């Protein structure tokens, strides 16, 4: 297996899904069974991704494989010199793992959808859209430059829009699609400006070349401040796509789409693209930018977690939990726990996709009932769904022996270490508190759905376990949520292949001398040399993480256990009457139930403001601009009618008068023209006599 054959495999798995999309879309109406084609395509893509990831990690572990071609050659431009825009593919360890995760989840969701979407009038089109999404996501993962990433970034936006609004007959679904697209757009504008700033400074879009120039000390406008601004602008794209505070409002609404879509796009892969983006451009983030990123991540972890406590729609709870977990990842990147952020991305992709697919299984068996207050006692009816979802819930809560424990623990250790090094323990406190909230709301969901007495007897009677094609993906994802796949020691992820071999540390990915030292202000990039006495960030940080490993683990276990315990006390054993508690803390409950009034706030400010501005501009247009245009028209018409009258009366008058005069003169002289020779003779005589008098010579 050579590098070029790896590139070939990468290109193949990139373009197979778009083939599936085109074929399925074109033949969808004619051939009823065409969706099998899309599924087979995905199987091959998954197989390719598996080979790719395995080969990359085992044979080409230390090198990033790139292949590029020149897309646009601007030649020797007068001001900037040689400029080429290269497109290409880069496979490093992160990309190889990510493409495997994307393809695996995508494949399982395809399988699950065969049964879940059965009977839908646009069945084949659904699979075509899934193919389009998988193609776009693979593009984001495999690209080696930020321009191509931006293109695929927008393509996932489109496919997300199409799939959220898949049941566009429902107004709420159509609105949710629109909302997702517009809110994402806000972030993407920032990202695009950031990309342009990078290009103006470095004259290239390729990640490696940008990092290389940063390590040589080239900065936008020669200032660390503008480097921070550029990094944050690009991060704005991640805020939009990963539904981070304050642009998180679209993700809960996106649950209007089919549940497998929520699992694939709005839990496992697309929303993780924001995290993936930050991982890709980690080298341009200054320490100031990283603090902002960590703060955004912490807020995004905390706010949705508090909202998820009180939501009653099973998918809404999961949606807010997704935002919260993505906030964890972003926060981890911000505090420098680079590896654990990506680790959590992978584990979260599996258990959150599983949670969504499990909720899809529940929803189908309950005949499209999504309110957990109507459920209860489903454990006996749906054992497979129950036990798989239990594993996912344990994983997301961070209970040992699950994958979630490993990655979440790493993130918490990272934020704890950050606190140790900087004295800023805000992120650690938020992290642990959110761990408590997560455990609570997940087990609230589980208990209300599966335990206790059925609250809606009629629907309960009809509920039954889903078919094999639906439970099989659940089982696969549940198995993937066990620790053993990642490390042999369930309490130390660093012994596992994934962290020791799979995910590069950021030093391997971006050498320390090309990135900003985390603890120094972003005046200039740190160039490592013998004289530098200060300990590099990475070394002290590694030590701090090692140090904080044990206390973090105990504390996070305590938090998760406490959260689960509270959930059981409240909902299983009913030791405390929840309704009374709600009454006592009614304002807080209302605040959480109404999602911190974010939608209302945005409606009142951004939406109203935009609509107000638009209607003002509309009025301006219709009154003033139209007024000017109409005024000009009226003036022109008046002027023309004056010119017309002048023409009709004066000019025509002159012409007619001339004609009339000629006619009149003609009328007179016609009298003399008798045609009689004798008359003429008389005239001659008279004339002669007159002439004689005139030339009087007598």
């Amino acid at each position: 297996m050579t590098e070029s054959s790896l590139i070939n495999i990468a290109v193949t798995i990139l373009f197979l899904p778009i083939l599936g999309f085109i074929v399925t879309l074109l033949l969808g109406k004619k051939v009823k069974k065409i969706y099998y084609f899309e599924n087979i395509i995905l199987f091959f893509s998954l197989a390719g991704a598996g080979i790719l990831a395995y080969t990359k990690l085992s044979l080409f572990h230390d090198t990033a494989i790139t292949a590029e071609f020149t897309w646009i050659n601007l030649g020797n431009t007068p001001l900037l010199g040689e400029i080429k825009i290269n497109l290409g593919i880069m496979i490093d360890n992160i990309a190889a793992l990510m493409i495997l995760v994307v393809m695996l989840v995508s494949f399982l969701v395809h399988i699950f959808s065969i049964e879940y979407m059965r009977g839908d009038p646009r069945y084949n089109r659904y699979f075509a859209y899934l193919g389009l999404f998988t193609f776009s996501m693979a593009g984001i993962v495999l690209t080696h430059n930020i321009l191509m990433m931006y293109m695929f970034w927008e393509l996932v936006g489109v496919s997300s829009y199409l799939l959220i609004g898949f049941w566009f007959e429902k107004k709420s679904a159509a609105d949710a699609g629109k909302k997702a697209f517009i809110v994402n757009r806000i972030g993407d504008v920032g990202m695009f400006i950031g990309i342009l700033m990078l290009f103006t400074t470095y004259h290239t879009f390729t990640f490696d070349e940008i990092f290389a120039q940063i390590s040589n000390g080239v900065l936008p406008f020669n200032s660390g401040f503008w480097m921070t601004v550029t990094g944050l602008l690009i991060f704005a794209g991640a805020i939009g796509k990963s539904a981070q505070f304050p642009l998180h409002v679209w993700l809960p609404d996106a649950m209007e789409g089919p549940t497998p879509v929520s699992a694939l796009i709005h839990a496992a892969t697309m929303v993780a693209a924001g995290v993936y983006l930050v991982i890709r451009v980690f080298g341009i983030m200054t320490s100031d930018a990283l603090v902002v990123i960590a703060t955004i991540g912490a807020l995004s972890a905390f706010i949705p977690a508090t909202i998820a406590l009180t939501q009653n729609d099973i998918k809404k709870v999961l949606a807010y939990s997704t935002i919260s977990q993505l906030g964890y990842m972003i926060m981890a990147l911000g505090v420098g726990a680079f590896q654990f952020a990506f680790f959590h991305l992978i584990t979260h992709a599996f258990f959150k996709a599983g949670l969504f697919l499990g909720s899809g299984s529940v929803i189908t068996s309950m005949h499209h009932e999504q309110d957990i207050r109507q459920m209860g006692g489903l454990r006996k009816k749906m054992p497979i769904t129950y036990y798989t979802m239990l594993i996912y819930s344990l994983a997301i809560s961070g209970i040992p022996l699950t994958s979630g424990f490993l990655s979440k623990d790493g993130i918490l250790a990272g934020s704890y270490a950050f606190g140790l090094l900087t004295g800023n323990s805000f992120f650690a406190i938020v992290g642990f508190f959110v761990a408590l909230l997560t455990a609570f709301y997940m087990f609230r969901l589980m208990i209300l759905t599966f335990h206790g007495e059925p609250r809606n007897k009629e629907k309960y009677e009809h509920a039954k376990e889903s078919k094999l094609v639906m439970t099989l993906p659940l089982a696969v994802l549940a198995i993937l949520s066990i620790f053993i796949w990642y490390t042999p020691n369930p309490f130390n992820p660093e012994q596992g292949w994934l962290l020791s071999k799979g995910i590069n540390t950021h030093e391997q990915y971006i050498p320390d001398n090309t990135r900003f030292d985390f603890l120094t202000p972003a005046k200039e990039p740190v160039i490592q040399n013998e004289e530098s006495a200060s300990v590099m960030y990475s070394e002290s940080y590694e030590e701090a993480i090692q140090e904080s490993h044990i206390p973090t683990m105990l504390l996070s276990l305590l938090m998760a256990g406490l959260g689960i315990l509270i959930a059981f006390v409240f909902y299983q054993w009913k030791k405390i009457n929840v309704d009374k508690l709600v009454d006592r803390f009614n304002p807080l409950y209302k605040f959480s139930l109404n999602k911190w009034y974010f939608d209302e706030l945005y409606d009142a400010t951004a939406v109203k403001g935009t609509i107000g501005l638009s209607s003002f501009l509309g009025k301006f247009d219709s009154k003033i601009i139209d007024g000017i245009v109409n005024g000009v028209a009226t003036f022109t018409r008046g002027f023309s009618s004056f010119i017309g009258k002048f023409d009709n009366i004066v000019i025509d008058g002159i012409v007619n008068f001339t004609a009339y005069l000629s006619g009149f003169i003609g009328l007179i002289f016609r009298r003399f023209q008798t045609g009689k020779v004798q008359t003429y003779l008389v005239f001659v005589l008279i004339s002669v006599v007159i002439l004689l008098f005139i030339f009087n010579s007598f």
Partner: protein
Amino acid sequence: MLHVGLTHFLVISIALFSLGLYAVVTRKNAVMVLMGIELILNSANINFIAFSKFGNFGLQGQLIALFVIVLAAAEAAVALAIVLNIYKTLANINVDEIDSLRD
């Protein structure tokens, strides 16, 4: 005894000319018009002869008068032929009604 001088001749000549002119202008019949022309020619003859007799010119005037008579004969022949042709085409020799020149 009344001496007959140049003036008498000229008076007769003028009278004859005026009569001729009158005939040409007023007569309706084309033949009459022709006759008026003859009168005018003859008044001119009288003038020639009178000036030749009383002036110191020899016989030049008489000679020209002879030419005029010959010309008048020829002219009468041609003019009558024209009148005849007009009559043939229009069946009319009334000068008042022959006004196709007007068209």
